[in-house]
Every structure is written in structure tokens, then in C-alpha cells.
């Protein structure tokens, strides 16, 4: 007995605030020596009630609220929400607007992946690489500022189109940035993939098998790094992606073999930077002329939205994976329902199989490897009498049954 109590795993809490976590989430690790035996986590620490705010505003106002769901995905949420509203109201987006949306969307992917790469390097204790990646990230930020007027919270997407056109004199600015990234990509790949210490820390660390990736409904680079061929841009094209050739980036294409580890997630994200450059180039050369918004006059746009009845969804391949917005309109100014499902929501559960059996030293890089965005994810926090409550599957089922009975009268 004495032996057992001595050897019993001890608990290490990590979070809600910890240097390894860029956003608040609460982890509880069962640790034995340096090995993680089991792990549980509790999100919901950064719930801000954005949906609640949105349901008291009209769609044109909500678009700017969606910009603020996430600090990095400035275009993902607004695009996804606009697509949902356009779906309900039957608004046809002009082709040129679709191309501009695509260009900004891909520039955002470049800066997001570079930001992630820097964070990953920092988690590994490789600060030189963090500073270098974040320095080259500035190029993308500058171009985004040039196109939209903002570095974050771009405010470029509007229901029915975009708020700014890309002028001919802005093309060389974008192209210069793309040239720089395309020439840098080889260097970045060799910095991250050929470095012995990074390889030792990332290869076969945080492995997510293909079966688990599918079973846990992971999305985006996390799923692709495990060899799951999913990418909304290829599977369910939106905006201008139907006209472009986009194929999901899989680690097997580059390395010949899929491990599903942190290393593969680095590979996928870095290669997607190159892919985004190609997509933007193609957009720039094929962009048709025409208006950039279906309805320039906001009162008229609002009237169209107000008349709309029904439900719609918008799905977008965010840098982290699929982002989904659901909107139901019932002929009022503000939507009757608005639900945001960010990509990290689908990816968080994959932490559990990745972290089990990992070393304490690997926790930060594994947690970072799915590029979690918790302020995007946190939609609900239940606090009753000053205590936090967790709803289980049974509770949710009971609540749904009760609600259905209520609706039936």
C-alpha cells in the first residue's frame, strides 16, 4: 500500500493562465515523473457573450462584431457570418467581391500560420526563430493594412460583398510581398524541418492517428497532418475557390509518409503558406472587373435583411480549420438565432489522445500544435451561485427534450 501511494500520479494544474497557454484554458494533468498519465481540460474561461450582443443588433452591425471574435482570424468570422446572412436573404455576391474576399482570406492564412510557427518555436525554447518568423510576418500585415486599412480587425467584409476594392496600383504591393514569401519559404522550411533540436522535440510527439482524427471530427491542418484529406476550399468551395485549383496540403506529399505528429503539423502549415501565395497570384490574374458589393446603400441592404425569413449557414476554411456560422432570421432587424462554431471547438478534443503518454516537456508544444483559439471557441460558461457547472451529454439531452416539449406546447 505504501509503495502505491508513493508512486501514485500527482496532479499538475496548468492554467487557466500559464506561460505555455496563449489564451485561458484550464488543464489538469495526472503526472507520473515526467510522463502524463491522463489529462482533462475545461474551456470556457474567456466567454464574452458575443452571440448575446449580436442578437440585439442588425446583420450589418454584427459583421463588425464578428471581426472581434478573434484577433487573428479577422476575416474568417465576418466572411462566414456574411455568407450565412446572404444565404438567408438570397443576396448574390458580385464575382469581384468573391475574389477580393479570397485574397484577404489567404493573406490572413499566411500571417496566421507564420504567427503560429513563431509561437511553436517559442514553446520549444527557440526564441531566435520566433523573432525571425514574426519579423517576416510583418510583410503580410503591411499588405493587409494596405488593402483594408487595418492590421487586425480588418472590417473588409460586408454582407453582400466587400467594403473596399483592390486598385490596380495595389497589385505590385501584393506581388512584392508574395515574391518575398515564395523566396523565403525554402529557408523557413529548412529552419524548421532540418533543425536537429526541433526534429528531436517534434517528431513522433503528440501523435494523432488518422482514425482518431476522423473520430474526433478534427478539422483543418490538425486533421490534414494526420492524413485526412479535408479542406473546405477543395470539398465545398465558397467565395472564389470554385474557380481556383486548391488541393488539400497533406504531409505525405512532402515527406512521403504521414506520422500525424507535431512535426507534420509544422509541415502542413508551412506548405500552406506557399499554397496561399499561389492562390493569391491566381486571384490577382483572374479577377474579373465589376462592382464589389451587391448593395452599396446600407439602408436598402438592411431592408433586404429585415425581410429575410429562414436559416442559413456559412462555412469557411479558417487557418485552423472549418469555421461555421448559423443564422436564423425571422423578419426582424436582428437575427432570431446566431451560432458560431469556431475551428478550435472541433479540434480541442484531439488534445486528449495527443497528450496521454506525452512528457511534461512536450505539453506546451502539443497544446500549441493544434493552434487553439479559445476566444473563438468559448461560447458558453455556466456559472450558478458562484460555482461553475459542467453540462454532460445527459444534461444536454434532457434540456433538449424539455425544450422540444415546451415548443410542442
Amino acid at each position, binding site marked *: 500500500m505504501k509503495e502505491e501511494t508513493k508512486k501514485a500520479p500527482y496532479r499538475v494544474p496548468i492554467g487557466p493562465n500559464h506561460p505555455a497557454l496563449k489564451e485561458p484554458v484550464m488543464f489538469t494533468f495526472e503526472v507520473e515523473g*515526467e510522463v502524463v498519465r491522463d489529462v482533462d481540460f475545461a474551456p470556457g474561461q474567456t466567454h464574452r457573450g458575443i452571440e448575446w450582443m449580436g442578437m440585439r443588433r442588425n446583420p450589418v452591425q454584427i459583421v463588425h462584431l464578428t471581426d472581434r471574435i478573434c484577433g487573428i482570424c479577422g476575416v474568417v468570422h465576418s466572411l462566414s457570418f456574411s455568407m450565412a446572412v446572404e444565404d438567408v436573404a438570397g443576396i448574390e455576391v458580385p464575382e469581384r467581391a468573391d475574389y477580393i474576399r479570397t485574397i484577404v482570406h489567404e493573406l490572413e492564412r499566411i500571417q496566421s500560420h507564420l504567427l503560429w510557427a513563431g509561437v511553436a518555436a517559442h514553446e520549444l525554447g527557440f526564441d531566435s526563430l520566433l523573432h525571425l518568423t514574426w519579423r517576416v510576418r510583418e510583410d503580410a500585415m503591411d499588405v493587409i493594412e494596405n488593402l483594408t486599412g487595418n492590421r487586425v480587425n480588418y472590417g473588409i467584409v460586408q454582407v453582400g460583398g466587400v467594403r473596399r476594392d483592390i486598385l490596380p496600383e495595389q497589385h505590385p504591393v501584393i506581388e512584392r510581398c508574395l515574391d518575398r514569401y515564395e523566396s523565403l519559404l525554402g529557408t523557413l522550411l529548412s529552419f524548421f524541418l532540418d533543425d536537429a533540436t526541433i526534429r528531436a522535440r517534434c517528431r513522433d510527439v503528440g501523435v494523432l492517428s488518422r482514425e482518431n482524427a476522423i473520430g474526433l471530427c478534427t478539422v483543418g491542418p490538425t486533421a490534414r497532418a494526420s492524413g485526412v484529406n479535408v479542406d473546405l476550399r477543395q470539398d465545398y468551395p465558397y467565395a472564389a475557390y470554385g474557380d481556383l485549383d486548391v488541393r488539400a496540403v497533406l504531409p505525405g506529399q512532402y515527406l512521403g509518409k504521414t506520422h500525424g505528429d507535431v512535426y507534420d503539423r509544422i509541415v502542413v502549415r508551412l506548405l500552406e503558406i506557399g499554397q496561399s501565395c499561389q492562390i493569391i497570384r491566381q486571384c490577382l490574374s483572374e479577377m474579373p472587373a465589376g462592382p464589389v458589393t451587391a448593395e452599396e446603400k446600407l439602408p436598402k441592404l438592411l431592408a433586404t435583411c429585415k425581410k429575410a425569413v429562414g436559416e442559413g449557414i456559412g462555412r469557411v476554411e479558417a487557418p485552423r480549420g472549418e469555421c461555421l456560422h448559423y443564422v436564423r432570421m425571422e423578419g426582424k432587424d436582428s437575427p432570431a438565432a446566431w451560432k458560431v462554431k469556431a475551428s478550435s471547438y472541433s479540434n480541442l478534443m484531439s488534445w486528449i489522445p495527443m497528450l496521454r503518454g506525452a512528457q511534461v516537456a512536450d505539453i506546451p508544444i502539443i497544446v500549441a500544435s493544434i493552434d487553439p483559439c479559445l476566444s473563438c471557441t468559448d461560447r458558453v460558461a455556466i456559472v450558478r451561485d458562484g460555482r461553475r457547472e459542467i453540462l454532460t451529454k445527459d444534461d444536454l439531452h434532457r434540456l433538449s427534450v424539455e425544450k422540444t416539449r415546451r415548443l410542442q406546447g
Partner: protein
Amino acid sequence: MTPTDVAVLAASCTALSLFALAAGLLLSGIDRKLAARMQARVGPPVWQPFLDTLKLLQKESVVPAHAVPWLFNAAPVIALASSILVLFYVPVGSFPPVLGADGDLVLVMYLLTLPALALVAGGFASGSPYATVGAQREMVTMIAYEFPLAVVVIGVAWRLGAAGISHPFALQSIAQTPVWSVTGPLGALGALVLLLVLAAVTPAELSRIPCDTPEAETELAGGLLVEYSGRNLAMFSLSQAVKTLVFSAVAVAIFLPWNISSLLAVPPALAAAADLLFFLGKTFAVSFLAVTLVRVAMARFRINDLVRFYWVYLPVAAFLGLVLLMADVAAAHLLGVIP
């Protein structure tokens, strides 16, 4: 000892302690500045560590509720005192070691482990899970790097002994007879290997990247030091700065002990000052190559990778150096240089 001797000794020890603190902080300032420049940052001014220390000394020192207070408070004092103490046994420039007659390289090696042991004790005494994991890692790191370090020290001293030096472990005699001056080409190669091994041990001894696992900011939130604040933290950071200086000074004494005053036509009054500056230059260069350059070019080791590196690869290299030194002596015997 006459009272005058005691007074002189006390005065020189005080002077040396102040020198150690100032030079250590300056060294860490230079390290931060150079690392920043290599990372494309501006970096803090060179005197930033002085300001940091001053600020920390004015701040409250919090003792956590779960801590063992006397051990928690004693650890930083022991760490700082033992770091400074090492310098009393190491030649500084052309000054012989202050306490050189009473201790040798073996004592220095034991003293060098003291700050790390104090850190471990302080970590365990903090009563925080992060500090406990950090303390365990620090112990494992110590066990890992001590062996290659011992091989280096013994190898050099043995070669000096084989060359007929009377007190081969005394740092003064090591410094007076550079190992390169007694070896042939084979031995020089062996000594070079040992020098590289010593350089590889340096980051682990000083807990810097890639061997900063015990503190690992992103993993353990500062690990060993997580509960320390104010005066106690200032003493630990001072001890870290002094230890960096001292370890480089030991490396300089073993492998690069030359003085500059005999080579340059310096007036005798300035000879000591010139030697001191040259000594500082050497220690800063050693610490730049073994600490700063390494820490900007690598990611952090996992503790098991660290142990493999220091138990498998480095001892193999160290033994290779040792074998080369032995071959050198054998060759000298065969050629009849040594009767």
C-alpha cells in the same frame, strides 16, 4: 596568520566579491544584448541587469504558505555565497587565487555544484508542483553533466602530472603551465577535444538553453524559481550572473591561462590592469561562444534527450580526448622526451 594577513585577506575577498558581482552583471548584460542583436531585436541596454537587480532588491520577498521558510530563504544566500566563493580559488588576470593555497580544482568542482544544490533545495522548499518538477530536473541535469566535466578536469590534471608538474590539481599551477605547453600534437588534439567537451557542459552547468529545462519558462513557468520574488530572486539572479563569470573563469584558467602583459610592452604599473582586462575579455569570449551563441541557435532539450547527450555522446568524446592525451604521453616516452 598575523592580524595584518587576515585584514589583507578580508579586504581582497571583499574587493573580489564586488568585482564578481559587477563583472557578472555586466557579462549577463552583454549576453542579453548580443543575443538580442542575433535575434534581430534591439535588446536592453548593457546595464539593464544592474537596474533589474536594484529593482528586485527593493521589492517584497514573498514566502508561499506551503514553503519551508528557513530553507526557502537560505537557498538564495547559499547559492550566491558559493558562486562568489569559487572566484577566491581561481586566478583572476595576473592575480593568483586569494585562497589558492587552501584549495584546488577538485574543491572548485564541488563548490560549483553548490549553487545548483541550493536551487534544488529552494525549489523543493517552495512547495509548488512546478518548482518540484524543476528541482527534479535540475538534479537529473547535475547528475548528467558532472561526469563529462570530471573527465575533463582529471584529464588535464593527469597530463600535467605526467609532465612532472608538482601540484597538478592546484589552479595556480594549471594556470602557470598551460596544458598546450606540455603536450605534443596528439595531446594538443586531445586537449582541444576536452575543451570542446567543457564548452558543451557549460550550458548545462549554467542552466541555459538548450539545458534550461529546470526553469523552462513555457513548460514550468520558471520552474525552480517560480515562487521566488524580491530580494531572494535578486540573489538567485546575481548568483546566476556570478556563476556564469566564474565558470568561464575556470575554463579560462584551465585552457586559456595566458596573460597579456608579458607580450606587450606595458608599463609595470598598468600590467595588472591590462591582465585583468585581458582576463575579462577571455571570460566574455568564452561565455559568448559557449552560452550566448548556443542559446540563440537551439531549441530546449527534453530532459531525456539531455541525459542521453551528457551520458552517452559527451563521455565518449571526453574519453577520446583522454585516450589522445595518454597516447601523447606514451609517444613522448617512446620518443624518449621524458626519461
